[in-house]
């Protein structure tokens, strides 16, 4: 099996330019075409552990990152994301192209992968059981996800949890973790050996970059996990860690409102979301220090359970 890191950068760039490069993330294969050198460098770094192939017979997505064929090719240059010949987004500044690839792939999964219930949430696995971390932007979800992935939890996904419609098992993508602003510096300090993609500035989210997933997360990315906990994290500066049980009914309603394809799935989405909530212990969790958060999640993984009391 060839991995992206087995290719030289020039070899990868050539495959990308010819549109013959495909990378596997979880069970999904994305065929990527681009002549943009910074995108090639980003893929070479962030997907180094991922399996890849040249001109596969099948790919779930066919995407291109390219410069527009107008004045914006040169004047305040931009990049465009193209999927299956369509341009679902407005162009972005040229220097955001590597991040644009990641965001575009996120959208592609959310828009079309209806073989799962796709939830806007991170998910990680420990001892065969998964924790799902739903949270709105700015709640510290990705920061917490990165910390857990770097400290013994297997990353399934940092952005889109994939729930099997029959078994409610959580499936992995093991893609790079998107971090922004202060969380970048926090995780750099937390894990100095982390491998990072390029930083992009002045995006709609501020300063953003991506963290390469741990090699174990990629090597085991085809192995699903049984969801066991749903934890809504919230970063509160200066706070002590606080884990409180959360009602299943409001948790379900959150999924009904925030799952990308709940409406498309109709009754099936209702059934799956309900089973998922029923089988999990649901919590709210506020924290300020990552070490505190890790301790709480380790406690959960070791069998900790609350019945209406706070810790």
């Amino acid at each position: 099996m060839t991995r992206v890191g087995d290719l030289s950068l020039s070899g990868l760039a050539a495959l990308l330019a010819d549109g013959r490069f495909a990378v596997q993330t979880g069970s999904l294969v994305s065929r990527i075409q681009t002549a943009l050198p910074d995108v090639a460098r980003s893929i070479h770094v962030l997907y180094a552990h991922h399996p890849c192939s040249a001109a596969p017979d099948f790919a779930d997505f066919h995407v291109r990152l390219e410069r527009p064929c107008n004045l914006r090719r040169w004047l305040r240059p931009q990049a465009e994301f193209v999927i299956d010949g369509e341009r679902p987004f407005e162009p972005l500044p040229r220097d955001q192209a590597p991040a644009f690839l990641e965001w575009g792939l996120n959208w592609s999964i959310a828009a079309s992968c209806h073989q799962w219930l796709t939830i806007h949430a991170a998910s990680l696995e420990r001892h065969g059981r998964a924790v799902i971390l739903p949270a709105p932007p700015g709640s510290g979800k990705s920061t917490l996800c990165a910390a857990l992935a770097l400290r013994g939890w297997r990353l399934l996904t940092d952005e889109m949890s994939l729930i099997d419609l029959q078994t409610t098992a959580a499936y992995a993508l093991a893609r790079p973790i998107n971090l922004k602003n202060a969380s970048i510096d926090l995780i750099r300090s937390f894990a100095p050996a982390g491998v990072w993609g390029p930083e992009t500035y002045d995006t709609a989210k501020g300063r953003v970059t991506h963290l390469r997933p741990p090699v174990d997360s990629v090597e085991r990315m085809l192995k699903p996990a049984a969801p066991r906990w749903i934890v809504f994290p919230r970063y509160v500066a200066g706070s002590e860690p606080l884990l409180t049980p959360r009602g299943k009914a409001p948790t379900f309603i959150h999924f009904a409102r925030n799952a990308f394809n709940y409406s498309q799935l109709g009754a099936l989405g209702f059934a799956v979301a309900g089973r998922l909530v029923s089988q999990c212990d649901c919590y709210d969790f506020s924290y300020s220090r990552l070490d505190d958060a890790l301790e709480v999640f380790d406690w959960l993984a070791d069998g900790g359970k609350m019945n209406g009391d706070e810790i």
Partner: protein
Amino acid sequence: MPDAGRFLIHRWADGCAVFDQASGDTHALDSASFAGFAADLNGQSAVVAIDAALRAEWPEKADAEIALLAQGCWQRLEACGLIQAGN
């Protein structure tokens, strides 16, 4: 009386969710509202069921307050199309 097969239901200790297969809508119901909805599905009086559920949940509340809460439950069920006016 609505067709019970039209609705899918998840129930938990702290509430329930109802999926209306006719409209594709999902509704969250508190205990009293669900009691009224379920009674109506079974051909029983929703008003009586809502009242009984509220009194069980709030034994200390006065009749007038219970009536007000019951009216709220009824209006929400009606607005969601989960109950027919006059039932």
